[in-house]
């Protein structure tokens, strides 16, 4: 038994232990929400630090291989995704504590559930085996169902949670059926074994495996809210408390993409082109439908939820082009996930901080003349919206740039055109808010706007700076790690997939 393998499991272990410790601590009256949030933060930061130890190298290790029988893997790819997911957890705790404190959601179990969700996502990214990934997916999903419906005196929360639960359990059954078929076809559920089976057999002999893979792909499309399966996301995002919406919209999507990229790139390497046709139309319809939804929303939360469907569409463009340009498409997906994570987490976080004191400020109209009252907050919100729309000098622009270039290179020019049109449309619903904040006289703001003090605005401010840094950093100070560093690491992550 090698003891140094434990290093690769520490991020996972720390979160798991943290979740259980928090669960035991939360019924004790002496621990207030504030104290529990520090405990949660401690475990998250330990996990982040141990994960960062291996950053910057290309490695692929199956920790305690004979104990876990190659079900877990730790490589640069999982390390990259882990750091985004854990960062998502940290930001949610930092920004959300204020919200949990103010709303009467006063229960410490929130943090325990949040850590369980993070645990499930980390396991999902690290799993090298279909059944492990199913269990990880369920750990994350069930924690999220409970988190959405946690505030049980609010009827919308229960309803959002209920819809997500019913449809989500259907999706996970599809996943299971897919695993059964792949198991029947290849005698294994290990991703590497399936890959070697697929490369040694003819396409005609593996109908079962292809059908199974398609069922798993359907689950994936459901979980990222792509076109035919997008309806749950509006209800679940609308029903959930704002910090949880932020967590779901940005972090969960990252974890799902982490798993499916590993699955498709390693396993169905030779068969990627089978799905390109379906995904082509799915990507177009997702972008069109999401744009239509987003235009007609009056509530900002629903607008951001709808725009997250559009962003799924952009990611699917790159996913389609994986078939012909594997490496650069995968890299652009990984990079875009970071860009989207920063922007949407920032926008939702800002909204949750503003909405935490009074629950009024949720529609466009409530932000009329906001910049005259809170200029810095309005500036940060504008940065997030600019990045979501993909305006140059923000990280969102560079992410979109790589995706569209990749689509044109691989011959899917139509996808790039639809994507750019969707971006034009998105400028309308993002800039509507900026215009309302800046160019209208300020009537009396109703309710109380929280001041620009404390930890949440600081965290949100740092994210705004990171977005700008990602967009222009390298041209200012060339030797400081910026965008090139992120892209290089994304390339390492891609390479580490094929070392095992």
């Amino acid at each position: 038994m090698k003891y140094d393998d434990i290093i690769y499991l520490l991020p996972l272990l720390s979160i798991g232990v943290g979740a259980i410790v928090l669960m035991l601590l939360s019924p004790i009256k002496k621990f207030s929400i504030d104290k529990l949030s520090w405990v949660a933060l401690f475990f998250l930061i330990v996990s982040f630090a141990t994960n960062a130890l291996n950053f910057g190298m290309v490695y692929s290790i199956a920790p305690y291989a004979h104990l876990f029988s190659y079900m877990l893997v730790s490589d640069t790819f999982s390390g990259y995704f882990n750091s985004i997911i854990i960062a998502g957890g940290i930001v949610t705790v930092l920004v959300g504590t204020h919200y949990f404190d103010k709303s009467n959601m006063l229960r410490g179990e929130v943090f325990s559930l949040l850590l369980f969700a993070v645990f499930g996502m980390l396991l999902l990214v690290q799993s090298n085996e279909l059944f492990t990934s199913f269990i990880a997916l369920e750990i994350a999903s069930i924690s999220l169902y409970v988190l959405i419906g946690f505030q049980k005196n609010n009827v919308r929360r229960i309803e959002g949670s209920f819809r997500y639960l019913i449809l989500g359990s259907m999706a996970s059954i599809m996943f299971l059926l897919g695993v059964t078929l792949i198991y029947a076809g290849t005698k294994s559920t290990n991703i590497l074994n399936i890959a070697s089976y697929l490369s040694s057999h003819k396409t005609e002999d593996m109908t079962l495996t292809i059908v199974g893979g398609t069922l798993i792909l359907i689950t994936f499309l459901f979980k990222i809210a792509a076109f035919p399966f997008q309806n749950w996301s509006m209800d679940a995002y609308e029903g959930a408390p704002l910090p949880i919406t932020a967590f779901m919209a940005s972090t969960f999507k990252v974890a799902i993409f982490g798993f499916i990229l590993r699955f498709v790139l390693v396993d169905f390497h030779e068969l990627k082109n089978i799905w390109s046709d379906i995904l082509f139309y799915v990507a177009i319809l997702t972008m069109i439908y999401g744009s239509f939804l987003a235009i007609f929303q009056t509530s900002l939360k629903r607008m951001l939820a709808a725009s997250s469907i559009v962003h799924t569409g952009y990611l699917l463009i790159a996913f389609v082009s994986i078939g012909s340009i594997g490496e650069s498409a995968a890299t652009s997906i990984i990079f875009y996930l970071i860009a989207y994570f920063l922007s949407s987490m920032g926008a939702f976080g800002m909204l949750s901080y503003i909405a935490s004191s009074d629950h009024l400020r949720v529609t466009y109209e409530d932000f009329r003349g906001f910049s005259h009252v809170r200029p810095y907050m309005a500036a940060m919100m504008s940065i997030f919206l600019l990045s979501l729309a993909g305006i140059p000098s923000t990280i969102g622009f560079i992410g979109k740039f790589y995706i569209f270039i990749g689509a044109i290179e691989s011959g899917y020019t139509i996808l790039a055109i639809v994507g750019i049109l969707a971006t034009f449309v998105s400028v309308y619903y993002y800039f509507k808010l900026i215009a309302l904040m800046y160019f209208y006289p300020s009537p009396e703001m109703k309710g109380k706007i929280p001041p620009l003090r404390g930890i949440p605005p600081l965290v949100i401010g740092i994210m705004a700076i990171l977005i700008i840094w990602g967009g222009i950093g390298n041209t200012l100070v060339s030797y400081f790690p910026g965008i090139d560093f992120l892209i290089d690491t994304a390339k390492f992550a891609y390479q580490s997939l094929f070392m095992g």
Partner: protein
Amino acid sequence: MITLTHYLTLTGILFSLGIVGVLRRKNLLMLFFSTEILLNAVNIGFAAVSKYYGDLSGQIFSFFIIAIAASEVAVGLGLLVLWYKRSGTIDLDSLQMMKG
């Protein structure tokens, strides 16, 4: 002689029954029953394939599926109780009040 094909056919039949149940039933409790049928259909498939290959891992998986199904239904029934207290009904159509 009962072969793998028979078991997989049974899986298919049960799965279709479950799908029909999920699509047609308006009672939320019945909906949960249908998802249980779906999960058990998959269970039979796993166990049969595992027996066919002489590989035990499939049977271990079906144990895990039972545990996961139980936890999912636990959350679902908890929500169902909350919903019943709120609205006094367990009809699926009562969930429509939120405009989608």
